[in-house]
């Protein structure tokens, strides 16, 4: 399983754009928002938590269809399915690899972009914490969506429609944690909910995703 993770990360680095795509999208969305809503610092500061979270979510969505599509096209997926790796392990590793290439860079870049949106000083800790806890759930839910639509031509649209509603709880609790942090309130409860969603999706979705893959490989 480590071999698979190492290979996926090597591919992401060598193919170029593996790390950069989501990050560039995140940056562009956050930079564009002040042009759209105007430069008043008070307004930006108030909407910053929501903007940062929505942008991070869309950036994660952008690279989801690549999770299984490339392995499906070159025939790696049936070979992995007949290998000693359990398919549940394969989907779990795929989710983790997606998080390392997308969620982790987004989390690390978010404070710099928060500065651009005049985010309250007290909210930075909560921004980092909520993204670190919440983005793994985005990757794992996305892996499930990608497994459902692998092999479909132009499956990306269908996958977005399937995955976005499942992202709603993560978005609500993630943005809420940052908003509370900005107001100086205690944000423990939304963070606990986020952690719960992440742990739950990592516990259950590898099984759902591998069942979907088995059907799609027939």
């Amino acid at each position: 399983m480590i071999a698979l993770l190492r290979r996926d990360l090597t591919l992401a680095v060598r193919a170029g754009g593996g790390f950069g795509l989501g990050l560039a999208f995140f940056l562009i969305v956050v930079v564009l928002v002040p042009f759209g809503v105007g430069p008043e610092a008070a307004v930006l500061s108030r909407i910053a938590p929501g903007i940062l979270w929505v942008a991070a979510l869309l950036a994660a969505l952008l690279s989801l269809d690549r999770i299984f599509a490339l392995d499906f096209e070159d025939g790696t997926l049936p070979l992995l399915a007949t290998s000693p790796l359990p398919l549940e392990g394969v989907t779990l590793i795929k989710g983790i690899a997606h998080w390392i290439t997308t969620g982790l860079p987004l989390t690390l870049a978010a404070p710099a972009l928060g500065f651009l949106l005049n985010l309250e000083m007290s909210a930075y800790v909560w921004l980092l914490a909520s993204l670190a806890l919440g983005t793994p759930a985005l990757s794992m839910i996305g892996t499930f969506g990608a497994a459902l639509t692998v092999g479909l031509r132009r499956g990306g649209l269908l996958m977005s429609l399937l995955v976005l509603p499942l992202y709603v709880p993560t978005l609500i609790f993630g943005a809420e944690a940052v908003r509370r942090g900005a107001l100086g309130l205690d944000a423990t409860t939304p963070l606990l909910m986020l952690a719960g969603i992440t742990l739950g999706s990592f516990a259950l979705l590898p099984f759902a995703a591998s069942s979907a893959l088995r059907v799609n490989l027939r």
Partner: protein
Amino acid sequence: MNLTVTDLSVARGGAPVLSGVSFVVNAGSALVLRGPNGIGKTTLLRTLAGLQPALSGTVDVPEDAVAYASHADGIKAQLTVTENLAFWADVHGTKMPDSVFGAFDLDDLRTRLAGTLSAGQKRRLGLARLGVIGRKVLFLDEPTVSLDGFSVKMFANWLRNDHLAHGGIAVIATHVDLGIDAPELDLTPFRSTAHASGGSDEAFL
């Protein structure tokens, strides 16, 4: 160790294509599947490999001994030849034998990115995977596509001397003469005549 197939029926896209297929392949021997295009060779091999369920019948094969090789080689263009093979060795928990590079004429290509290989060289790399993973039962779907005569002979040599001679089993769907001593099974008599039944999800559509 042997591969026993009893009264197997397989379906593609819900329609049965072959029924009543039975054969036994003993350790150290191979079976060549023959039949016109569309008869169901690929479907049969995928069913044997466990990638799709059979309509009926049983496939008796030792657990975790099966490898499948299809038209697509599962090669990553951004990895070198050695890295591609090392990945499959890691996944299967085997040590990559150095002889595999010689057996498939990949010695000069070790550090080349797989994306820069020709179609035939890619095919050789895809087949070399079989020499790395140490599986005893191989299901090969048209293994010689895009190989030249020399490479076909090389692959047949590997199959005979390194795989079958060590107690391996191979079921091969091919249209060319590999030059290995193996019985042939013509699939034409097994063509399914029964109308779609059981395998279809039409009722749910």
